């Protein structure tokens, strides 16, 4: 019975991952992260993704504050924040977030404020979708580990 539960959960995880790859939400860099996780670093993927969430949310808040300011003109700062978001999104395999950040950055390079505001909305939307999907993935993984009788500190 336990075995069937584990198998079903693994199938759910595989289905979710396949869907995320198919949608272009994730790319092969995410597989690299999974391959780096082993018994010496059993929660590596969870840890690095959570660091990504913390840092990304700080950057997105900062971007929103900058753009909401009526006197705003610091496009260079927008560019620096976006460079960081592009870099960290690439590093965890968050392809769609990375791509919309690149588009947003193009608007900032043209000092296009309406384009930047639109870019920010799109990045926020993609980021929150990714975050929801990752939470679902981690919940399934946690259930699978519990079903298999494995305990890791979370």
């Amino acid at each position: 019975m336990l075995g069937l539960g584990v198998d079903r959960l693994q199938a759910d995880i595989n289905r979710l991952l396949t869907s995320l790859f198919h949608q272009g939400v994730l790319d092969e860099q995410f597989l690299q992260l999974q391959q780096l996780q082993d018994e010496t670093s059993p929660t590596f993927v969870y840890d690095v993704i959570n660091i990504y969430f913390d840092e990304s949310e700080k950057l997105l808040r900062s971007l929103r504050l900058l753009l909401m300011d009526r006197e705003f003109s610091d496009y260079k700062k927008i560019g620096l924040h976006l460079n960081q978001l592009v870099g960290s999104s690439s590093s965890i395999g968050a392809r769609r977030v990375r791509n919309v950040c690149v588009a947003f950055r193009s608007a900032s390079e043209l000092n296009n404020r309406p384009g930047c505001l639109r870019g920010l909305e799109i990045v926020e939307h993609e980021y929150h979708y990714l975050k929801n999907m990752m939470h679902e993935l981690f919940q399934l993984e946690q259930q699978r580990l519990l079903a298999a009788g494995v305990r890791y500190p979370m």
Partner: protein
Amino acid sequence: MATTSTGDIEKTKSVEVKKKLNVLIVDDDPVIRKLHEIIIKSIGGISQTAKNGEEAVNIHRDGNASFDLILMDKEMPERDGLSATKKLREMKVTSMIIGVTTLADNEEERKAFMEAGLNHCLAKPLSKAKILPLINNLMDA
């Protein structure tokens, strides 16, 4: 077994000397630092991190730092990778320095970074496959 200050482990005469790769990871992004730490760990190395080029330079100021390899991000606050690399070479730091750039960096920017004193330049995201050939060359040397 005796352990030297650089972490070399000397065993008895019948066994070869075994050295752990000692790496300094310099990046302002904690996601990248975490990823690079795990990559280095996965190939049997140990690492220390610095949040920017100024921290990396400060680690070397007392002359006791001894890294086989420095992974140096290009864009960082306080002191960027180019400036940090130049400074480290002025300080006679002989570690292999691999510059880590992004796709946004153009050819001219990468060339300037190399000329600051890098041994190699790689684009993010780093992976074991990208870094291992360079490290194998370093360990063979």
